[in-house]
Each structure stands twice: as structure tokens, then as C-alpha cells.
């Protein structure tokens, strides 16, 4: 049996190219609403497309569009990956 990491990660912690599902617990109702309108919502599969230096924005691919979110936001979007435990 493969062991999966169960601790939720934030989008900021994901590796570039890695895919995951958005989990619950995104902070702040305003943020939830704005992310929701962009299609980033619990259960949605997202892929981290790129990141930038110095804690800059993270770009996610969701459905067929790409959305860039600031680093602080990226830290508040929690996801579950199927990453193996080391």
C-alpha cells in the first residue's frame, strides 16, 4: 500500500508541474468569493504551472484557464496532493 500525505499543503508549497485538488478551508469570505468566481473552489483539480522569485505570484491551471494568485493567497489555498511520503 502506498502511503499518501494527508496533511493538506498550500498551493505555495506545491511543486511546479504538480497537480492537486483544492481542499476546504480557504481563508476569508471575500477571497473565497473571488477565487470561486475564477473557478478555484473545493474539489477542483489544479496544476501549479509556475512560480516566481522572491515569493511572487503562483500561476495555476484550472480547467482550461490559467490564473495567477499572489503568494499570500497561494499560502491560504489548501490542497491535497497524492504526493508520496518520503
Amino acid at each position, binding site marked *: 500500500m502506498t502511503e499518501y500525505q494527508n496533511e493538506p499543503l498550500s498551493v505555495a508549497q506545491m511543486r511546479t508541474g504538480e497537480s492537486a485538488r483544492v481542499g476546504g478551508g480557504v481563508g476569508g469570505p471575500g477571497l473565497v468569493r473571488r477565487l470561486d*468566481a475564477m473557478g478555484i*473552489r473545493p474539489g477542483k483539480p489544479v496544476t501549479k*504551472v509556475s512560480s*516566481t522569485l522572491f515569493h*511572487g505570484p503562483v*500561476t495555476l491551471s484550472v480547467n482550461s484557464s490559467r*490564473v*495567477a*494568485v*499572489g503568494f499570500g493567497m497561494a499560502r491560504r489555498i489548501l490542497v491535497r496532493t497524492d504526493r508520496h511520503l518520503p
Partner: protein
Amino acid sequence: MTRVLLVGNPNVGKSALFSRLTGTHIITSNYPGTTVGFTKGYLKLGGVQAEIIDVPGTYSLEPSSRAEEVAVNMLKDGDVLINAVDATNLERNLNLTLQLLERRIPMIVALNMWDDTKHRGINVDAAKLEELLDVPVVTTVGITGQGIRELVGRFSEARVPKDVRTYSSSDERWARVGDIVGQVQSLSHRHHTWYERIEDATSHPVGGIIIALLVLFGTFWFVRFAGEGIINYVASPLFGFLWTPVLLKLSTLLGGGGLWHNILVGQLIGGQIDYTQSFGFLSTGLYIPLAEVLPYVIAFYFVLGILEDVGYLPRLAVLMDTFMHRLGLHGYAIIPTILAFGCNVPGILATRVLESRKQRFIAMTLISIGVPCAALQAMIIGVVGNADAGGGIGYVAIVYASLFIAWIVTGIILNRTVKGFNPELLIEIPPYRLPPWRIIGQKLWLRISGFIKEALPIILGTVLVVNVLYFLGVFHAIGNFLSPVVTGLWGLPKDTITALLVGFLRKDAAMGMLGTLGLTAKQLVVSSTILAMFFPCVATFVLLARELGARDLLKATGIMLAAVLIMGALQNLIL
């Protein structure tokens, strides 16, 4: 009259559809937020005259920026909606569609960017979508005009669905969206396109920065190269061969001097017309806008148009985000800033895409202080960079560096002192697209004709006013009054105050005046930096007043004056 609203998510091609529907051309680009106000047009739809409005894009009916607020507020007044939907991004677009349907306004859907679905491996069953939504669905390609006839033809079928569902929660609505998408869309395999390779390169953490620097450097190089080229090989010879003989004849007719001669033809320099020195209504007044400024305006908007339509600007916004946060802004503020390098007016309008009042205040103030428009830049390069008059490109670089420093320092200070919040970046990154040349050409023409129509009369008027006021001796009085600052603090001759005041009307004309005063290179640097930083031109000022309100305008003006006093004094001390 029926009022038709063109609504949809940002960057789904509403403006292109609008242009096609009404036959009037408006600016389109490949980034969300091109349309921040609204544009009206008229057309006959099913035998009735209709007013059609291009509404700014919005992701939901709960607005998060000024531009989205405009969109949501306009919904109340719509008789019929044309909902533009990006066919390559059904899921997110349909979420708004369902929200719009809940408003019970008759609607027709334009399934736009239809041509993109094929090479992106997306198959959409439009007929099935029509059945599920219970409103007409027409496939369209806004930029080529495909499907527009059908859209107009079926317009009268726009309706409120028989059974309008309302959703008690966003989750419920998304579930319905998922259900619809599952029924109408299938995906097929596709190859990695070269667009995606460019995507990977430009969004690489390090590679992206290198590419951004190359793009910026390339832009400056191209604009200067092309601008100079047009001046030296087209504009200047045209004036020399065609216009000079006419003016000389006129000069003789007017007796070679006197009030009318000085106003119309200007001062003859050694018996000849000198287009930069004579300063007559018909000599310098025409030469500045048409031969010195227009070539740079063309070159700048050509490059800007390509960068916009390819979709590079949102990537630049992402790269610049961390830096822009230090100035109290986020990365997206780079787009209004870049637009302002063409003309501050559209730049300031574009700040509406920013979410908070603090951001908009800072962005507008920084644009007014640190971003010279293309017309002013052309004249700075022409006058300060003129080696014959003791200037040079090194001095031009000092002006740019000073403005850049003023922009950054003011931004850092404002970030710490202006109350309010600076939300984080949250933007959609559109796919790269190869813009059709026809669209680039149309947009360039739109902007150039806009410049000629709006700037040319003001420049001519400015030159006229200057001549009349000179004659009346008004400038002399003001010059004496302000001389402690101008000569004491900035080390400039009293005459420069005239030019600086003229800058309120048109900064390019003012820069032209500075060129006639026989200033030293240092004085040219100081005066052109001051001209760029202090008080925006009247067109920008009126817009600032509207967007900021009286109180904030006063604040912004105070900041500009403080910044310019300090910068001018520093330059005077250091240089």
C-alpha cells in the same frame, strides 16, 4: 430604443464582437480589463434601432473592482443581453451565464473564440448547449466576423428561459455548470504547441525575468529606431521640401515681420524657417505634432498593440508583482502604467481594474509624476538629445533615471502613508495568441487618428496662445513672481517658467519652447524633468478630477508639487 448589453467574463472578446456588430472600431487586446468604461454603438436589430453597450468584463455579479462595479450596475438598464462566452473556457464562463439568467432579462449567447476550440482539442455541442440553457446559442469568432450575421439574425429569439432556476448557493450553481459542461463538451488529445513552449519560457522564474528585460529593452530600442527613422526619412524631408516654400512665400506676403508674421510663421532664424526655433502657428505649431511627436506615437503604439494582442502584458504583471507591492500596488498596475507611456489619459482610466481606492490613488499619482507620455518623450529625445545644442543621449538617460527614481521613491512613501489596503494579485492569464495584422493595423490607426484629432488642435492652440501672451507681456509678470523658485532653487533662467506653465496645456509644445531658450544641457535636464513630473496636462487633470474627486485630487497635486520641488533642487545640486 432597445438597450442591448454585451456582457461576459473579462477577455472573452466582447469588444471584438462589439466592433463587428456596430461597425465602429474600439480597442481590443488580449488581457482582461481592456474595457473599463462603457462604449455605446447603434445598429438595426430585427428591424428596430437598438443601442448596444460594450460592458466591462466581470467574473461574477458580485463586483471586486471599479470596472466590475460599472458592469454590474449597468445590468439594471438592459433590455436584452448578449452574453459573450469563451468557448474554450466553458465552465467558468457558464457560471456567469447562469447568474445572468437568474436576472430574467432576455438573453442570447455568443459562443465566441469558436475557432480556438479546434486547435485546443475542445469539442462543444452548441445545439445541446442551446437546449440546456433554453436561450439561443450562436457560435462566433469576433475578430474575423464569423457568425455575426447569424447572431444578428437570431437576435429576436433572445428570451428568458421558460424555467429559470435560481441557486441557493454558489456550490449548487457550479454543480449545474458541471452538469451542463459534462453534457456538451468533450476533450481530445492535442500536441504541445509552440505557444506553450513560449509560455513555459516566459513564465520561468529566471528565464521570464530575462525575457521581460529583453522585451522592455527591445521596445525602447525599436521605438527610438523607428521613431527617428520616420522623422529623418519621411517627416522632416516632407516639411523641408513641401511646406517650407509655402511658409517662405507667406512670410514674404506678410512683409517678413510684424505681429501676424510672428504668430503665423514665427521668427525667421537667419532669414530661414527653423521648425524647432521659429515657433509660429504654422511652422513649429505643425512641426511638433506631425514631425516630432507623431513618428514616436506611431512607433510606440505599434509595439504596444503587438504586446497587448499577443497577451504578454499579464505575464509581465505576474513578474512585476513582488516589486509593485513595495509601491503599494500589485503587478496588474503595470498595465495602466505601460498604457500611460503612450498617453496618461488611457493609463489613468485603466487604473479602474485595480481593486482598492488606495491602489488607484497611488497608481494615478505615480503615473502623473513618473510616466511621461509618448509625445513628451519624443520631444525630450528631440530636444535634450540634440547633440547640436549641447545635449546628448546621456542627458536623456539622466532624465529617465530621475523620473524612475521619483516614481519608485514616491511609491514607497505613498505605500507607507496612504491609508487603505493593497489586495493581492488575482488575475487570469490568457493564452498567447498570434494577433491578425488587420486587427493590429486597425488599432494602430484608431490610436493615431485619436492623437491627430485630439492632440493636434491643442498643440496648435497652445502655440497660438503662447505667441499672444508673449506679445502681451503676461509671461514676464508671472516669471518675475515665480523666479525665486525657478532661478533660486532649480537654477533655471526666468524664461523657463513660461514653458513650464505652457506644459499645463501640452507638454510636448512646452518642451518645444524649452528648446528655443538656449539652455545649457544641465538646465535642459532639470527643466524637462520638472516638466514631466509637475502638474499633468489639462486632459489628464480633468480625468484625474473625475476619477479621484476634489479632495484626493488636491492631495495628488500637493504630492506632485512636493516631488517636483525636491527633484529639481536635487538635480540642480548634483549635476
